[in-house]
């Protein structure tokens, strides 16, 4: 691959502004003939690279816990139309990283999963991932609506709120999330104020 192929022109706007992103880590490793290792490409300091490599190399959730997280992500944001599901864009792996990156999230997440598993066994005699989808929805319905839920399941409500938070953040910080939201920024442009029709709508 030629060096210039690694330079990606984001866009050239009407005002003639251009910006280029060079991928230094890849460029260097190719130039040195070394095998490609995906390195951080967003201005990390050496200490930050070290910390992220350590976190990435660790595993926090057990396979059983990851199965519960994955199933909940799928219920919270399933695919819709052309937009993929939270699971399809890797939200469970994002939640795993967050648990390692923010240790204060570990007990609420792990404990929440334990609470859910216990509740599932009480109601249906099996682990949450082993019960029928209809029974899973029965449980989720009991904890997904904070204002309707009974005090007896308040721990489940808190856990589901946390899972909803992380799933939404995880999804909308992906390319598919930008697409679903219609976010069209983070590119060079010439700001001239909101479109005339928008201002007109609000009488400005």
């Amino acid at each position, binding site marked *: 691959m030629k060096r210039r192929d690694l330079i990606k022109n984001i866009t050239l706007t009407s005002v003639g502004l251009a910006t280029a992103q060079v991928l230094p880590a890849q460029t260097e490793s190719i130039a040195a003939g070394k095998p490609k290792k995906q390195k951080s490409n967003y201005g990390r300091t050496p200490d930050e690279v070290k910390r992220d490599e350590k976190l990435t190399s660790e595993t926090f959730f057990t396979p059983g816990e990851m199965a519960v997280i994955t199933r909940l992500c799928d219920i919270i944001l399933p695919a*819709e139309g052309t937009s993929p599901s939270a699971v399809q864009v890797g939200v469970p792996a994002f939640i795993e990283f967050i648990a390692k990156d923010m240790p204060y999230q570990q007990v609420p997440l792990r404990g929440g999963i334990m609470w859910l598993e216990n509740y599932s066994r009480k109601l249906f005699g099996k682990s949450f991932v082993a019960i029928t989808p209809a029974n899973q929805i029965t449980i989720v319905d009991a904890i997904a609506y904070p204002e309707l839920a009974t005090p007896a399941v308040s721990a489940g409500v808190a856990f589901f*709120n946390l899972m*909803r*938070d992380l799933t939404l953040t995880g999804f909308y*910080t992906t390319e598919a999330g930008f697409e679903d939201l219609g976010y*069209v920024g*983070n590119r060079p442009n010439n700001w001239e104020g*909101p479109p005339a029709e928008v201002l007109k709508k609000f009488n400005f």
Partner: protein
Amino acid sequence: MTFQIKETPEIFDVVIVGSGAGGGMAAYTLTKAGAKVCLLEAGSYYDPADPQYITQMKNPWESPRRGASSTRPFGDFDAAYGGWQIDGEPYSAVKGTEFHWFRSRMLGGRTNHWGRISLRFGPNDFKRGSLTGIGDDWPIGYDDLKPFYDKTDKLIGIFGSVENMFNEPDGIFLPPPPMRLHEHFIKKAGTNLKIPVIPSRLSILTRPINNERGSCFYCSQCSRGCNKYADFSSSSVLVIPAMKTGNLTLINHAMVREVLTDQATGLATGVSYVDTKTMAEVSVRAKRVVLGASACESARLLLNSKSARFPQGLANTSGVIGKYLNDSTGASRSGFVPSLMNRDRYNEDGVGGSHIYSPWWLDNNKLDFARGYHIEYGGGMGMPGYGFGMGMQGSNGKYPYPNGEKLPAGGYGSRLREDVNRFYGAHIGMAGRGEPIPLETNYCEIDPGKVDKFGIPTLRFHYKWSDQEIMQAKHMQDTFEEMIIEMGGIPLGNKPGPETNYGLEAPGKIIHEVGTVRMGDNPNRSALNKYQQAHDVKNLFVVDAGPFVTQGDKNVTWTILASAMRTSEYIIDQVKANKI
């Protein structure tokens, strides 16, 4: 590791400690005048245009934490290294008091973390003592600094609007960017409530000003550093151009331990520093010493520069160094504006920060607190990052969908996509930044027996807000609520009350601390004269915010720049006159 003390062979005309706004401006002004300058920076090199440092224009998914603040206090993409806590560089506070000390260890220092808000002090800001009977006047007035504000405007570039408000002096402005949609709402509410809402004054180039720097391409990411140099950072706008003169020797990873003096003459002869890479002790000799290490770091350095001749620390005959530490007040509130739901989509990034602000508009003689504040505003259809979409159960049960149907709060599934979409861009925020009363009882001092990892004695803080700041925060909260309601919005959360000092942020959290190396005409009450020159040591100067007697209700960076330029020109004049 070596314990041998190295000495640089050259005797520099000037050695400068710190590469932020003050140190950067001194380096620029002095090297352009032909002086041979050594600039010491405790942190690493940084250039916002060098790909190895760039976070600008990166997408949230390039960060495994999606930009969350686990490693950098303002998020993964913020340009500034460091923060309120740095490994191996501790500080403490006297029990029952609190101060949070933000440091950026990198070229450009904290100019890598700021909102580019570039406000001049007004004539009254230099005279608060005589105008109100509380606090002290500066030894200089607006007229002394005006020419340097003008030159700073032209050199660095700033946008704004001519408003002819007495205490909000106009500068030499580039055109301001048009308002975003929610900013139109805020402006209208302000007009109804007789609260001025005017274009922000930010050091961002809405038009090119020279061939070295590009102009803004509206990515809204000044906090990430600009690879086109279209905003002000000390690295891109001052230090890198200073290096191009050939007169600047920049030494990174140089943590300065003390200012060296000649015990016979009492003059500064240079500084000694620890090379943080090798832990070697090095000394730099210079004919003049300029400190721009930040208010608290410069105070610490002077207090640590003790000798037989200067037993209280250098330039501290008055005993004032460390005292009168003061940070801006800060309080905030957010709101939700139902008429901004279901918005049309377009790129609303704009410049980094708000396009509007409210300068102080009331007369404190008619209020129960003595100083003013300004308001900064937030909102719009910004780029999602960590935290986006969280707390949905707090709003999605309250508002009917377009078909008139209401659903219980929380939930899951496809409704959440609709919720995220309909609420996007409907939240706004307001933050007050106010002037505190500088008090002798708010101070930093050397912490007995404590050192950092370089063996340099550390700081202990003693800081408490007074009723003046608490009552000011109360007024902010009343104003925010009025504004949000006037916009047709709903204030979120409970209104902060006396139990939280009305949401008043802890000292240090606003990162505008000043005042620890006071200037004044009376050597018994101040460390520096009106040129920021030490009363006790005529070849020693301070060019950060340490010298500032007060900080106004204006973010201080522009005043640091103008003062540092003024002091640098004074140094040049004094050298020409053979006085230092």
